[in-house]
């Protein structure tokens, strides 16, 4: 992977790339993949109260081939790590990863000196685009994470960020 030449540096279609990024940003299909507590909040995001469908991202695909976005929702342990790596490899390019919750970010509350089971952060397995902290994060936090990911893809923010008034 490292030795590959970054083709986007050689050939660039600026406008087309913008349009494609827009298309990708508005159609992020996540992989149906819950690990632990955070998975419940991930489901809650798809439910009527928050409704991820508004952003076109409610099409949870069970097969990694059809998914664009992997939301790692929960603790990854050492037994699960090869499987989750395989799932990531089975997803087709371009693909993105959101690490949802403290466990996926760093191992969270399960890290202590001498622990034997938990992978301390899913970014040790594959690159992560957006980290959403919380234990578990609120559904709003996941939506914000997806908006951040869209911002990363298109360079534009979908909604204005609320600012604290002085």
């Amino acid at each position, binding site marked *: 992977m490292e030795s590959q030449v970054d083709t986007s540096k050689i050939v660039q279609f600026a406008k087309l790339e913008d349009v494609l990024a827009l298309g990708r940003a508005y159609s992020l299909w996540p992989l149906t*993949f819950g690990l632990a507590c955070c998975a*419940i909040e991930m489901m809650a995001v798809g*439910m*009527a109260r928050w409704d991820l469908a508004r952003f076109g991202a409610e099409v949870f695909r*069970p097969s990694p081939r059809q998914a664009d976005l992997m939301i790692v929702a929960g603790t990854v342990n050492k037994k699960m790590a090869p*499987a989750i790596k395989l*799932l990531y490899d089975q997803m087709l390019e371009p693909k993105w990863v959101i690490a949802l919750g403290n466990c996926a970010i760093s191992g969270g509350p399960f890290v202590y000196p001498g622990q034997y089971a938990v992978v301390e952060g899913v970014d040790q397995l594959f690159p992560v685009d957006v980290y959403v902290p919380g234990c*578990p994060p609120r559904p709003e936090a996941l939506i914000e994470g997806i908006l951040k990911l869209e911002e990363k893809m298109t360079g534009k923010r979908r909604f204005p960020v609320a600012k604290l008034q002085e």
Partner: protein
Amino acid sequence: MIAQKEAPSAGPSGEAPQETFVLNLGPQHPAGHGVLRVLMTMDGEWITKAEPVIGYIHRMHEKMGENRTWAKFLPNTSRIDYLSAMHYTHAFVGAVERGAGIEVPPRAEYVRVITSELNRIASHMVWWGALLSDLGGLTPFLYAFDDRELILDLFEGICGARLTYCYYRFGGLCNDVDDDFLRGARAFLKHMPPRLKLYRDLVTNNIILRKRLTGIGLISAEMCRKYGATGPVIRGSGVAYDVRKVEPYSVYPKFDFKIPVYPECDSMARYLVHMDEMEQSLRIIEQALDQIPAGPVMGKVPRVLRLPPGDYCYAVEAARGRFMVRIVSDGKDIPYRVKLRTPSFSNLSLYEEASRGMILTDALAMLGSLDLVIPDIDR
């Protein structure tokens, strides 16, 4: 994922050789409810052997109990079975209180019962939606989560968390409940019965659902006993075993409620047990709200908690069945051993025997009806 056929093996005496193949369900599979993996040896669509492979979300809760103080283990208890976190905290807190001889004020006990029962309804709602989505009906899932949100809002008001509450403390609660909570709970009591009727009309009496669950996934009472299955599984097999009645704890003896029992042993019986339990939980909450006394919510607890040496057990009826905490103390301020006996572990262990000879579709419907939470199995 790569299809591989085992060598054709000769069937029992005189039959034609049968070709079986191994279907690897999971660890990422929509029916796995997380990271359950089931190795299914299949003969066509028939299952000859279904072996659950677990441990994909083992999070060493028991080891963590041994290297932190009693109080610091509390956050872990709400992450074992995140859908019924209140019950799990209750069991651990109860075991420590039993060991240290801490008295809990009555108001705290009442609030524990109210929150536990609300949590049970929330957990059953998730189960109901997940079972229906296993069966291919996605809409009930969203309806269930709508009702669940009302409960989560109440919990958020009293402890700030939506899922991992950690609301009970040794000797009481971390906060007293406010009037908002009590009013909200009463409003929820009004809101829920019409919704349950709606679910009965819309889903329970649906002919497709009945056909898919009735007579499917038989688990006999004897099998439940041998495997230690509890909760809705054993109650769906005709045994009225409920820790709240059989081995009463907290202030449950003061309330009048029934244990729903169905003797049919099939998935439909388990389904109906869950649905009836929600109604009974509403009854308990109503009585508890009527009787709740005023007073403090925190008893007298020593600053540094040390339990006398020995082992102490405390069992509660969690949403999925009997949850027992066994703590072993050697007199220090950290536990010597924390054993968590989780209901899903025992309920799943009978799956291999119960699913033999079933069709894939039915086996997965049965898996859904067992009401599993995978981190609860793996701990």
